[in-house]
């Protein structure tokens, strides 16, 4: 099975990823640090979003609430649904809230990025 090298731009870290494996799973298997945030792992929450700056890939279905069509066209995809077809260079875009680890912090922080969107069940296309 062809394996490709995935490079994370700002940390320079590299890991291998099979064509049948997703980039998030390969990263969490091989990297010691959590360079890509891990959320639902199933294409719904968007915290593992990355931008592919070089390379060929395919994706599986991702929630449009967290990865819109234009965004996807610009190379933004969810790492949990990203399958390489060549070596890839990626930037991490998604984010977890790190501000409230309650044991250490007394401040409740709402400082995180989220897609604000109301979905009307009858109007969704």
């Amino acid at each position, binding site marked *: 099975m062809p394996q490709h090298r995935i490079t994370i731009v700002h940390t320079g870290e590299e890991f291998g990823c099979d064509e049948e494996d997703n980039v998030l799973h390969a990263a969490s298997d091989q990297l010691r640090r959590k360079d890509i945030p891990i959320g639902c792992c199933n294409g719904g929450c968007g915290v593992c979003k990355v931008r592919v700056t070089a390379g060929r890939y395919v994706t599986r279905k991702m929630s449009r609430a967290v990865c819109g069509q234009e965004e996807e066209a610009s190379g933004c995809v969810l790492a949990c649904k990203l399958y390489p077809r060549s070596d890839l260079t990626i930037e991490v875009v998604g984010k977890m809230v790190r501000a*409230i680890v309650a044991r250490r912090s007394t401040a409740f922080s709402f400082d995180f990025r989220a897609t604000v969107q109301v979905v009307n069940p009858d109007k969704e296309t």
Partner: protein
Amino acid sequence: MALTGVLRPGHVAIRVLEMAPALKHYKDILGLTEMGRDASDRVYLKAWDEHDHHSVVLREADEAGMDYMGWKVDSPATLKKLAADIERSGLATDTQWIPAGEHLHTGERFRFTVPTGHVMELYAEKDYVGNNCGTDGPNVNPDPWPDGLKGISPSRFDHCLLYGDDLDGTVKLFTEVLGFSLAEKVMTKADPDFMIGAFLTCSNKAHDVAFIRQPVKGKFHHASFELGSWEKVLHASDILSRTKTRIDIGPTRHGITRGETVYFFDPSGNRNEVFSGGYIHYPDKPAITWYDETLGPAIFYHDRELNEAFLSVFT
């Protein structure tokens, strides 16, 4: 009858990205029973001890998340009264009547959007199918549980936790218009009047729905299903690991509600919970207060801190 008005959560409609893996999850792993499919390809499911036709409705869509949550009220007269009360309150938007039959085996529903952006429905009638425990006809000499249970097999859909911005407006609507009690609340220490979490009940349960203040509209944190014991929560966790279902956290205990829990994700990233325990709520019980600085043990009592996913990961 002491328990009147809004009786209980009746259904949750969840959007899934692909129906086939969703059904494998909700039927084979969670262990709900498929009850039917409609002309729009929505799939209707129920847990074993529920008597009404369905409690979970899955719809394939381009976005994960929750379409709406439905509440069963005690009678058609109450449905009309509460619909008028909601209209009059000015707290809800996009109010509309959904005709009988739009959901399989369900009477008319009154749909409205609460200030946190979540779509809610009230209904009075859903066809009765029973829990299949009777040995001599429905509800006659019943066994304690039916044959043929699969997967985790919770007894019922129990509650949802939802994220949204105008928490005060939603709490006002649920308490002042729909008759819910605030069983537990999370406030900030800096401003003790600023609420960041509300656990609301319309029954004797510790919560029937909960909201956490976040700068979003209409977001879904989890739908929860009831198990009879802590040991069953551990057994559920074994099933989740065996089936390589993505576990979020647990098994552990919540400080809030005292429930024992495991959180996990469906194949579209929607969070599910199975839980047991919690206390019995009576309307004269004083509301429990937590503060932001103890949000860790309030949410995850054993770890005493939130995992990163609790606030960031939702659909």
